[in-house]
Structures are given as C-alpha cells and as structure tokens.
C-alpha cells in the first residue's frame, strides 16, 4: 500500500523556475512546520527565503543536484540522504550530483552532525520532496500530451505514456513543471516498489577520496595564508611565564603571539612551527585543581561510598527487596578517559577582516563554530561565512569549536588569513575527552533466580548524569534504584561516539551476565525472561524502549550465532538499545593451542528499514571495531593535568590484525529507518568480555582489557607491545 501523506498546511516546499531554467525546489529536511507552498523566483528562494533547508534542482538537461546541509564525517549521509530523495523522484541515480552546502542559518535550520539523529528526523521529508518533484514533472508531461496524469509512469528520470508510446525526460519538462502548483497531498511509494533505497549505493565521494583530491580541512590552502600551531596549558593551569627566544629563531617562524592561555607560533609553513613549538619555554602555575589519574581513583572510591547521589529512577522498594533476597550479586565496573583521535587532527582556517570573517574547515557544528568566531572577533554572525569541508573523522570531538576560536584569535592578531593545525600531540593533550566513569551494580535474586531488585550507582565526570535510567532492565524489575553522583573535573570532557552508553552498555551487559550466572540461568534466556516481564507488566508505566524489537534482535542473535550449540565455541552475548536502534551481539571465542582466540562477532541490528546496505555495514562493522578497539586498548591517563599518552605509539588504536570477522544481520521490522553512526558500538565490549568469561571464567570489570591482570595470558589474536 502506498502511503498518502499531506504536504499542505504550513508545509515544506518552495518551488520555482531557476534563472538557468529547470525546476527548483527548496525543501525542509529537518523542520515539521514550514510556510505554505508557493511559487517564488530563485532569487527569492536563495536570497531571503527561510524555513527550508535543502535544495533539489533539476536542470533542462536532466541533471539533478541535491545540496546536502549536514557535515559529512564518514557516516555517509551525503550518499544516503540523496538516495531517499532520488527514490521517490524515480531519478536516474547516475545523473544525481550531491553538493555540500555552506553554513546558512537562514535556509538550514539544524545543520549539524551528531546523535545519529538525521535519518529518523528527515526520512519522511526527504521522501515528500522527491515525490512532490515527480508529481510536478508528471503533471507537466500530462498537460503537454493532454492525457490524464494517472496514465503516466516514471522510471530513471523518464516519463512514459504506455497507450501512445510517448516518453519524455525529466529535464525536458522541468521548466513547465516549475510553473505548476504543488499538490496538497502526495502519494509516497509502497516500500516494496523501492529501487534505490535498500540497494548498495557507493559513497558519492569515492573517486575524489581514492585519487587524493583536496577534500578535508587540512587540505585547504590559500595564497598568502599563514600557518599557526598552538601551545595550550595543562588542565587546571595557567601561563606563568613565556620564553620564546629559541622558537623565534627557527627559520620560517614569523611571530609568536599570546591570547588567553595559549601561545601561538606563526609562520609560512607547518614544519618550522612543529620545531619551534618544541622550543617554546612556557612555565605554568595552578589555576584550579590539577588532576592526575591516581587522584581520580580516590575520588571515585570516595564518591561511590559517600557521594551525594541524585536519584534518577526509583521503582518499588529496593530496601525490602535486598533484605528479602536469597542471593545478592554486587560488582563495580570502571573505565579510563579516552581521546577521540580522528585521523585528521583539529584544524581550521580563519580570515578576520575589518567587518567580516571567512571560515573554512571541518566541524560537526558549523553554527556553534560561527557563534564562537563572532564572540572572539567581535563581528556579527551574519557577516561571518562558513565553508564546511569534509571531516577526517569526528567521533564527537568536532562538536566543539575551540580550534575554530583559536584560528580566529590568531587571524585577528596577525591581521591575515591563518590556518591553525594541531599536531597529533596537541590532539591527545588538548582533547575534550570521554571522561572516566565508575559504576556499582547490585542485584537481588529470589530463591528461584528471579531478579527482584536492581541498583545502579554511577559516578561520572562533567556529564550531569552517567546513567540511562529508563533503559532495560528498567521496566523489568519490580524494585529498582538508579542514582548518580557527578564530579566536576578541570579536564575538558565532551560527547564521545555513543556518549555514556559507550561504556555503560559494557558494564550493564557484563553485570547481567554475572547475575544470570548466579541465578544459574543461560544468559540469553535470563534476559528474555526479563524482557517478557517488561512486556507483560511494565514496571513504572510505559517502557521507553520497544521491548518487542529488543526481543527480536535477541532471538535472532541466538539463532544466527548458533547460541550455545557448539561446545568448542565459547560465546558472549549482549543486547543494547541506544539512539533509537536495537542491537544484539554475540562474540565467538575458540580455543587454539589451549588459549582463547576471538574469531567472530555476530551483529543483529534493528534500525528499521536499511537505506543503503553498504553504508549500513560500514557503520555496523565500524562501530564494532571501534567498540572493541577502545575496550581492548583505549587508555588515557593523566599526570599533573597532562595526558601521559601523547601519540599513537603509546595511545593504542586497534589495527588490522586484531580485528575478528564481523557478520552483520538486519531485522526487517518494518519501521522507518533510524541512525547507525553510534548504536553498534555500545554492545561490543560486553559481548567480548562475556565470551572471555565463558572461555576462561575470568570476569573483566575494567577497561582497557589489555592492562588487566586477568587478561595477561589470554591471546585473542592480539599483538602485544
């Protein structure tokens, strides 16, 4: 059944002919409310129109251009968004071009990348835009041929009239289409008719990437541009004195300038600045609490025992539940700080002029970057332009705009165009990290092994709340208490791919394994029992997750992984819901020469409809590799306010040889698509840790695994340093 969807009422399209001819549609792929549809001139659309935020144009030659407003950092949105538009348009995909739109807060209302939220938010809007354009093109052809539009069909940018044998290309009717009035209601395709959505479509920038064309922020150069590198203070410290004599003597250094708490070396190329920065002698003094990892350990212990906790969720009566328990299971889990470490280090170009600023670079949040540039330069945001380059990874680091502000500071001081480049050492020491966190879990079991009570205390840093209190197993346990203690650290922290859940999922899913074991139940059966309880009689009102979808991925994981059926394969299970997507994983360990070897991770994902199978597999596998790599190796420790690991020799990222096979499956749940950038990462650490327990009876409660004494003689196919 095709879906009829209304486009009327304050809806989202603007239609016009373009000055070059053809059909031009401005549509809104974020907002729910937009002005009435009306025909406008292109100038009006491009010049003043508000409340729509993406463009689709069809030229008389049939070329289709779709402007993509969201920064592209590898999540492949620049391919998947246009696929959705092209599907409903019945476009010839080979004639679709995708261009990155610059920051434009008049036209685009939510131009950012983060939270795996873009696809669920935009799915229907993208489809309506494509369907409306097709409707207009078909109507124009019907008018020209004087036949009812219902008699026409479309395929790959061509309109057909079967009865008369006539056909015409989209480009040829684009001008006429631009003069028509858009419909108030539009019919969307039945999903069964999809020809582009659900097929593997290659990254639209493949060619440029593999030829090494300039795409990234660091690839941006301009005649006369200065380069800058910056020395930043340790966390909790400020500059006491600067001796820049040696740095200034390096050939190629033009100046050494200071702003706020930073010292910038400025020159005409990068290498001299790398040398000069090492010759800077900057003395620092305390300006707050100067922290080390050893302090953090004491802080966590103290706050876990004595901290003033904020109750996040409370069901039933945990005191009675634990008093009456036949058995109590308790465990603490902890993880260190992590750096985002995208392969492209932070960088940005800024040119502060008398009354305007030009910005170019990689950012997940162009609007935030611009407002920080406005604050530093004193120039109003409307006089600041922002060109968004491709991002060499983000993982949350480029949600911040500290590096943009730095470029603006230096450009303002130098009165010249400046590109600030961070070294890898800057990236690791000047980060905005995933904070360390510690969790304490307690479970009460009755004599039959039913979980009658559940307690979780999180001690987090700078996060406000380190729990996800309404996630499973909330709703499945009659007596539950989840609370949080927050510590304010002087170390800068920030969202890191799958914030909070990137570690919480591991801790929770490992703990549930411990409880299942204590209850003498199979880990999958134990979880399914809880899910059934939540479904039949949800505790505390409506569940904030779809328990049927969670059951769906769990059962499929058991089936696809041949759960528990092969005695030679030791398995670990985990299931997690985050970012609107349900993911279950099973890790397979096989014994090789008496030691366990991690062979495979099965991943079952319910993200609703899969838009692009190639892109989806990328995100699923990438998430698993990322989750595994950081659980296994990721460790950033501090000494005197500075990270101890300053480059990839000490800060280990996962490599080719350490990656097991990852088998991917998707549940066809019939739901509209949800995002995939984050949700496959959280379950991985738990699946691996549970498999390690199954193989060795050793429980890993701390990350990174490679540093734990329980792990030292375990070989998972890992090369040790």
């Amino acid at each position: 059944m095709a879906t009829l969807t209304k486009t009327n009422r304050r809806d989202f399209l603007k239609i016009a002919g373009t000055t070059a001819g053809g059909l031009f549609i401005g549509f809104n792929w974020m907002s729910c409310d937009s002005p009435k549809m009306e025909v406008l001139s292109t100038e009006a659309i491009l010049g003043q129109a508000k409340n729509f935020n993406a463009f689709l144009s069809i030229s008389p030659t049939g070329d289709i251009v779709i402007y993509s407003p969201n920064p592209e950092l590898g999540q492949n949105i620049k391919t998947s968004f246009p696929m959705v538009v092209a599907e409903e348009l019945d476009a010839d995909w080979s004639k679709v071009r995708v261009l990155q739109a610059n920051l434009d807060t008049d036209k685009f209302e939510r131009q950012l990348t983060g939270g795996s939220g873009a696809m669920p938010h935009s799915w229907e809007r993208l489809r309506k835009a494509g369907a409306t354009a097709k409707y207009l093109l078909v109507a124009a052809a019907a008018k020209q041929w004087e036949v009812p539009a219902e008699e026409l069909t479309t395929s790959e940018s061509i309109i057909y009239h079967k009865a008369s044998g006539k056909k015409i290309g989209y480009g040829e009717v684009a001008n006429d289409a631009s003069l028509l009035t858009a419909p108030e209601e539009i019919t969307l395709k039945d999903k069964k008719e999809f020809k582009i959505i659900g097929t593997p479509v290659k990254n639209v920038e493949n060619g440029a990437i593999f030829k090494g064309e300039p795409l990234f922020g660091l690839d941006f150069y301009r005649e006369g541009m200065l380069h800058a590198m910056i020395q930043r203070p340790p966390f909790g410290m400020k500059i006491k004195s600067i001796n820049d004599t040696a740095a200034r003597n390096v050939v190629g250094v033009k100046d050494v300038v200071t702003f706020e708490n930073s010292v910038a070396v400025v020159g005409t190329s990068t290498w001299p600045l790398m040398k000069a920065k090492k010759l800077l002698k900057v003395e620092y003094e305390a300006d707050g609490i100067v922290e080390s990892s050893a302090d953090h350990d004491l802080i966590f212990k103290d706050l876990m025992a004595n901290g003033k906790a904020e109750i996040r969720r409370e069901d039933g009566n945990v005191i009675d539940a634990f008093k009456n328990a036949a058995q109590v299971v308790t465990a603490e889990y902890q993880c260190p700080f992590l750096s985002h470490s995208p392969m492209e280090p932070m960088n940005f170009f800024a040119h502060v002029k008398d009354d305007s600023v030009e910005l170019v670079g990689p950012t997940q949040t162009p609007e935030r970057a611009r407002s920080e540039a406005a604050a530093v330069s004193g120039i109003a945001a409307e006089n600041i332009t922002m060109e968004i380059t491709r991002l060499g990874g983000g993982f949350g680091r480029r949600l911040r705009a500290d590096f943009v502000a730095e470029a603006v500071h230096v450009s303002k001081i130098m009165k010249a165009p400046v590109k600030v480049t961070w070294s890898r050492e800057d990236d690791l020491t000047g980060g905005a990290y995933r904070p360390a966190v510690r969790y304490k879990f307690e479970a009460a079991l009755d004599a039959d092994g039913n979980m009658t009570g559940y307690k979780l205390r999180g001690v987090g840093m700078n996060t406000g709340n380190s729990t996800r209190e309404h996630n499973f197993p909330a709703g499945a346990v009659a007596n539950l208490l989840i609370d949080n203690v927050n510590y304010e650290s002087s170390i800068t922290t920030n969202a890191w791919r799958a914030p909070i859940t990137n570690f919480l999922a591991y801790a929770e899913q490992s703990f549930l394994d411990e409880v299942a074991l204590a209850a003498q139940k199979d880990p999958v059966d134990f979880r399914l029992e809880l899910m059934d309880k939540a479904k039949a009689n949800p505790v505390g009102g409506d569940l904030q997750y779809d328990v049927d979808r969670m059951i769906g991925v769990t059962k499929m994981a058991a089936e696809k992984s041949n759960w528990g059926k092969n005695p030679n394969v030791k398995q670990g299970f985990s299931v997690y819901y985050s970012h609107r997507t349900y993911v279950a994983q099973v890790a397979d360990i096989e014994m090789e020469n008496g030691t366990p070897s991690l062979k495979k991770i099965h991943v079952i994902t319910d993200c609703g409809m899969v838009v692009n199978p190639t892109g989806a597999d990328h995100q699923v596998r990438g998430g698993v590799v990322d989750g595994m790599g950081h659980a296994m190796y990721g460790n950033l420790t501090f000494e005197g306010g500075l990270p101890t690991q300053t480059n990839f020799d000490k800060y280990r990222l996962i490599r080719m040889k350490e990656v097991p096979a990852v088998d991917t499956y998707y549940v066809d749940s019939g739901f509209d698509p949800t995002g995939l950038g984050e949700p496959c990462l959280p379950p991985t650490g738990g699946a691996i840790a549970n498999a390690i327990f199954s193989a060795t009876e050793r429980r890993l409660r701390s990350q990174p695994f490679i540093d734990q004494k329980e792990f030292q003689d375990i070989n998972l196919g890992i090369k040790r340093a």
Partner: protein
Amino acid sequence: MAIINLKINGKAHSVDVEEDTPLLWVLRDHLGLVGTKYSCGIAQCGACTVHKNGEAIFSCVTPAASLTEDKITTIEGLSENGDHPVQKAWAEVDVAQCGYCQAGQIMNASAFLKKNASPSMEEIDEAMNRNICRCGTYHKIREAVAMAAKSK
C-alpha cells in the same frame, strides 16, 4: 635553507626549504600535493605513505633532502585517472568511511602487491597492519586488497 631537487610523479621539482623538512610537508605545504596526509608525524599510522622507488615509506619522518636520487610517487601520481587496480578495487568495495587514511592505505597496498602479487589473507593483514583506520574499515580494506591482487 637549501634547494632540494626531487622527482615526484615523474616530474622534477625544486624546493627551497630547511634540510630537515620531511617529505610530507614539502608535498603538502610547498608542492600542493595534499593527497598525502598528516596524522601522527611519528611513523605510527601510515596516513603519509608514499612510494620511494616503489617501496612504501612514511613521508612524515623521511627528510626530503635524503630523497634527491629517488623516484617518489604519491597518491596523485599512482595512476593517470585513478584507475590503478588498487584504486579500482577500493572503489568497487566502497572502502571509505571518512576517507582520510585511505590514500595512505592505497599507497601501502599498491607497494605491497607489487612485491607479493598473490598474497594470503594473513600476508595482507600483516602488510596492512602498519596503517591505522580510525573508522574501522579494516574488513573492506582486506577485501579490496584481495580483489586488487586477483584483478592483476
């Protein structure tokens, strides 16, 4: 400062830089060949990989002045039109996520396949282990190297 003469992608170049300047920064800052990437600067990640007489080297730690007698190839010069078998396999497998490390991966893979035309999967893993991909495209890299080996 010193004049350094280099032969890159079949063309002669002359640059005036400090003698310790790594090839990476000569390529990027002085010659506009920005396909070769900076990421770690200490020969740990492979993003800066180029060929020296067909061998994969880390351009971030190799002074340009030490390469005046050598033939250097960067991603821009690997093929005329991006149609080297490794580039073609990379496109066919759709390897990239963010794409930043991929030029280095391709340069490492192409040098490796020149030495070992029909590698085992273990040999592919061993050879590609020197390049980091933070997005975790390792499965696709493995697949693309194997495909390129077959296509030769």
